[in-house]
């Protein structure tokens, strides 16, 4: 049973990396598109490609969390206790990313639009960075755990 849940989790993480990863990549492309009026064509293309699918891609992330806390509750609690800072920064990034993406659309004024695009682009770099920092920390924490060293756990 544990193996099946782990497989589902692996597939969900892979799906989020592909779907969500593309969206983060689109954010970075958006950031690097430049500051000319012409760059707006790139941004319109990013909007056009992302708008119908980014919610579905984001649901994979929620799904990963749900499967983790249902299948491996101790791991979930330990990871979220140990990686508190990077995960908190990641959720700030998630909020700012959504705000940036949502707000630049109704703003037709060029400079205002660019400001929201920058928020969206920078958050698109920082959010996956903090996710990766968390994931990178897990094997290290796991080895400490296996060696019997207590990592931060609310119930000791």
């Amino acid at each position, binding site marked *: 049973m544990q193996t099946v849940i782990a497989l589902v989790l692996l597939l969900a993480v892979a799906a989020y990396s592909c779907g969500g990863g593309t969206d983060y990549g689109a954010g970075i492309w958006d950031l690097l598109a430049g500051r000319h009026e012409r760059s707006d064509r790139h941004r319109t293309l990013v909007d056009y490609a992302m708008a119908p699918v980014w919610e579905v891609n984001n649901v994979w992330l*929620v799904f990963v969390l749900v499967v983790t806390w249902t*299948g491996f509750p101790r791991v979930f609690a330990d990871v979220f206790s140990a990686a508190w800072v990077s995960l*908190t920064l990641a959720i700030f990034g998630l909020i700012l990313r959504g705000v940036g993406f949502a707000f630049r659309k109704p703003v037709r004024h060029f400079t205002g639009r660019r400001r929201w695009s920058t928020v969206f682009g920078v958050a698109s770099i920082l959010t996956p960075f903090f996710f990766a920092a968390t994931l990178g920390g897990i094997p290290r924490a796991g080895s400490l755990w296996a060696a019997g060293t207590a990592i931060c*756990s609310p119930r000791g």
Partner: protein
Amino acid sequence: MTGCLDACVLEVVLAQPPQTLPARLQMAFTLMAHIILVPLGVALPFITLVMNYLGLRRDDRTALTLARRWSMVMAIQFAVGVVSGTILSFEFGLLWPGLMGTWGGVFGTGFGIEAWAFFLEAILLSIYLYGWRRLPPWTHFWFGVPLPAVALLGAFGILAANAWMHSPRGFRLNAAGEPTDVDVWRVLFTPMLGPQYWHFILAAYMAAGFGVASVYAVGWLRGRRDRYHKLGFTVPFTVGAIAAPVQIVVGDIIARATFHEQPVKYAAMALVWRTDTYVPEYVFGWLQPEGTVSGGPRIPWLNSMLAGFTPDTRVQGLTSVPASERPSPALATFVHTAFDVMVIIGFLLLALAAWFAIAWLRGSRDPSSGTRRRHDLPRSAWFFRCAAACGVAAVIALEAGWITTEVGRQPWVVYGHLKVADAVTRSVSAAAIWTSFAVIVLIYTAIAFVTILCRLRTEWRKADAEAGVTEPAERLPVPAEESDIPYGPREEP
């Protein structure tokens, strides 16, 4: 009231680890923001589909325009809801690892159902939104039809998890006190699920119906008495008005379910200090630390009558459990106030729904031409003034009901098994949580503020356009998708 709040804050600070207060505030704040979006997610698809159906059936372009505009509101609501919902699922781990680490494996299934429903909803909603121009009208309508059912399924998952926290079962505790032998069906279908679920669904339909209608009531009051506003008011208001009387009955049922399943919460809702028969009901009022209630009229016997239909029904009081297992007098007063606010708003909305129904059934006669309409809206401006406020009132009632449910179970997070203070994270200092709480409040408030500014600017630009002021040169062309014609050939991009 401030004295009461101070006492409330003081007691929380003294009795619990320092992380508890900021963690509770952050969770409460993000949930409170999220719960405003939920009614739109649960009930707006249904209201929009009704309007879409009317538009197609009667070949009515006004109705189709309304349906299309509401579907844009659905899109915005869904996008914001996805973000604020993701934040909530992170907070389970960041703020309450003690809850998830021990009990996540028991009650996680409900969230799994919700995530699955969320996938379906995201896909169907995208088809519905982008199908306005790309699909034949009736095919487009039928793609939208599963949306209300999928929204009900998602709400079921979340409320199954929440109801389990209020009446936990479906597991066995082993020698170490940890849950084993999880029975998924018993976890999902707990005694509080039925009442909580229907109470919440009806509240969502009322909040969304009255909320949408109130927008058009404002337009009506400002003199825009055209078909567009009449239709935009009547359809959602009817949905809210049908839900209102059913909600009173369901509200009565959930109060009695709480009396049986969570007697201490019921005692807090009604400010019952000592277990007794012939218990009175207080309207507002403060519970003093020594157990008397000051302020607020007192209705003899009513509380016992509500709990068991006879005045000699024995109602369990707050003092029937040790002080560490019940909400403090200040918190109980808070719960009682929220409960009373919810009930009073519920009855006011029922009265407004009745006014609407009577006027609709009586119809009207135009005094100048003598023509009779079989059905018509009330003529009184006071009706529309009340209707303009009913959306905000329904959302306040929803929030008050949620406060009653969640604060009323304090100090427990899993009723009878785990206290909030034992669930909170200890891996960071209270200062860190205060900081994250402050940042989240700041960003959320900034969002609300910027939204209002954007709205204002749109209005000003419209006013400018009407006054003939030329548009700024920097302005980009309007994308074709933002135009309002529901169906028809699509311009190639």
